[in-house]
């Protein structure tokens, strides 16, 4: 059976199914139980699996991750929620110091299979700290995987894979896409390989790389340019920010010779830089034009009065694609 679900419902489905499949999966976070999560992503879990597996914690992010590490070490599979990614920095010491390192510290004897879900990104007219895109911080932490879905169905499948992954996975949910659209999502179990980018659309003239909430304005820009100019554009959804799928990135650029990278986050030292470095390492000689990036700026994410001017738009993406085609 297939249902039309939005991303919130699709993630909720993944949580329900994985908690049903595996008794060791627990959900932990602020307001995730009785309240069903501030975005209702964990709706119904508390009623179904009870308070010992759906844990409403005191207000402490470091506490949530630190105890999740302990649970994971002892054989549970915690799916922790940071209410917003802007509050996740309070748990960073536990992540970098322990979740990411226990495997290497013990040479594989102790591992930390857990998932940290967090809504991220702008465009929802929210308060300060509720709109940033800081995947680079987590992507820069060895030992941690960073997954960013873009649609209801890939969110559902990737979350199941993240829960089954043997290592810590940061799962960043583009909150702007939470209820933006619906998609058919299968009731049947679905997984998706972590660490693999997805070619959403094949093309021969130019490649566009994007992820998360940027996929929607990117798709729009790609369609416009194709319609207006009759060119063939390859669109790649990264899905995993770390470890990056270098082969898919290089393979596409070898074919098209031109590319544009779209990143909501501030420009410097982010995934876009890493993608360009990967092209430099693996496919530089195939390039026919410099790689363009469309990104946020290196400023504090502005309060929402100015966020529309800050966030990359389909217009900006459109122009960058045309300029790269015309180079």
């Amino acid at each position, binding site marked *: 059976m297939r249902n039309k679900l939005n991303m919130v419902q699709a993630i909720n489905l993944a949580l329900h199914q994985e908690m049903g499949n595996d008794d060791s999966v627990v959900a932990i976070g602020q307001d995730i139980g009785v309240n069903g999560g*501030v975005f209702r992503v964990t709706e119904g879990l508390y009623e179904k699996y009870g308070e010992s597996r759906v844990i409403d914690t005191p207000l402490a992010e470091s506490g949530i991750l630190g105890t999740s590490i302990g649970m994971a070490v002892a054989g549970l599979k915690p799916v922790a929620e940071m209410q917003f990614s802007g509050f996740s920095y*309070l748990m960073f010491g536990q992540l970098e110091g322990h979740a990411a390192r226990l495997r290497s510290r013990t040479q594989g004897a102790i591992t930390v299979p857990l998932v940290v879900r967090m809504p991220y990104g702008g465009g929802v007219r929210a308060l300060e*700290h509720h709109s940033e895109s800081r995947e680079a911080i987590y992507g820069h932490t060895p030992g941690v995987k960073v997954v960013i879905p873009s649609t209801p169905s890939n969110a559902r499948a990737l979350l199941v894979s993240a829960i089954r992954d043997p290592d810590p996975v940061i799962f960043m949910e583009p909150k702007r896409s939470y209820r933006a659209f619906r998609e058919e999502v299968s009731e049947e179990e679905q997984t998706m390989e972590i660490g693999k980018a997805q070619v959403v659309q094949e093309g021969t003239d130019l490649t566009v790389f994007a992820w998360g909430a940027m996929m929607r304005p990117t798709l729009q820009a790609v369609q416009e340019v194709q319609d207006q100019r009759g060119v063939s554009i390859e669109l790649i959804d990264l899905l995993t920010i770390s470890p990056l799928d270098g082969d898919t990135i290089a393979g596409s650029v070898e074919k098209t010779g031109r590319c544009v990278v779209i990143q909501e986050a501030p420009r410097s030292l982010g995934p876009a830089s890493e993608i360009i470095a990967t092209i430099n390492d693996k496919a530089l000689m195939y390039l026919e034009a410099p790689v363009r990036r469309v990104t946020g700026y*290196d400023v504090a994410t502005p309060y929402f009065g100015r966020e529309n001017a800050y966030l990359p738009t389909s217009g900006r993406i459109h122009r960058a694609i045309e300029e790269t085609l015309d180079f």
Partner: protein
Amino acid sequence: MIVNTCEQHAAGGKPAYELDLRERTFKISHLQILDEKGNLDAEREPNLSAEDLIKLYRTMVLARAVDDRLLKLQRQGRIGTFPLCTGQEAASCGPALAMTPKDWFVGSFRELAGRLLRGEPIENGFLVFNGYEEGNTFPGGERTLPISIIIGAQALHAVGIAYAMKIRGETDSAVVCFVGDGATSQGDFHEAMNFASVWQVPVVFVCANNQWAISLPREKQTHSQTLAQKAIAYDMPGIQVDGNDALAMYQATKEALDRARAGEGPTFIEGVTYRLMMHTTSDDPSRYQPPEQLEAWQGRDPLVRFKSYLEAKGIWNDKQQAAMEVEIKQEIEDAVKAFEAKTDFKPDTPFDHVFGTEVPKIEEQRAEFLHHLREESTDA
């Protein structure tokens, strides 16, 4: 009395130690000056002028009216998400009245009432909650930090400010730091309590225990019977106060500030109050809040009892009340007008304030940003 005997017996079968879990050896004082019905404990009545008492009352009424207006604007889509302060006016304004302009005000995010008393313009809240940083500062607000949305973080800033006062030998100033009950679970909060106590700095922590942190009830936030008792572990005075009693909140803070300024170190005040509205406009309390609890607390309204007190003192009457209501309504409407008339926000302001020095990379990006804005407007 229940005594928990340690499992591990020492040689000879005698327990190595005994844990007495029920018989508390500490006591937490509870302060109330004005009860729910407006009865006064005359012995403890603070020595406040009629002018100050009326200012306190007026600000509480103003804060509630602003909340009300903001809520309407939010529901009409004319403003963004915001936290409501209704029900907590006394816990915020009482302490604010005890402060002088030389004291630092370090607020949580639900501190509208105290901020208004501190002199912050009404428009500021409108601006911040409609997405403009411009509402974070105001003339005369040099010793007022902007709201802290990161729960509990501000407690450490308060202690740092108090340390600076201490080493500069300022004896006429102190810091008041507001936190919620939820904040007391954060590491930052406990670090702040510990640092404040180790350093013996002039800071007063005022905790608005409004019984909820979004959907988490107080008893799931902490297993302690009171929040005030947390101070004991840091060897700091900790008291519980009726947080809906503006006189008690004032008096408790005043005494703590006097001690702080005299070099006698920090204090922790738990103001027992209640969040009468939703957490923020995005929240739906019907999912978690028992209606009987809400109803019980509606009967303990801080504004109602304070009005009776003023009337009993003979410094307030219906005529004054009616005049004040008209005035407040006008004041708020003027603020809404001023706020809605302001549309000339400089688009590249975020680039002005990344650093205090000019950085070429930021300027390059500013130029690019402005270029894109022009392109977008020609696209449109």
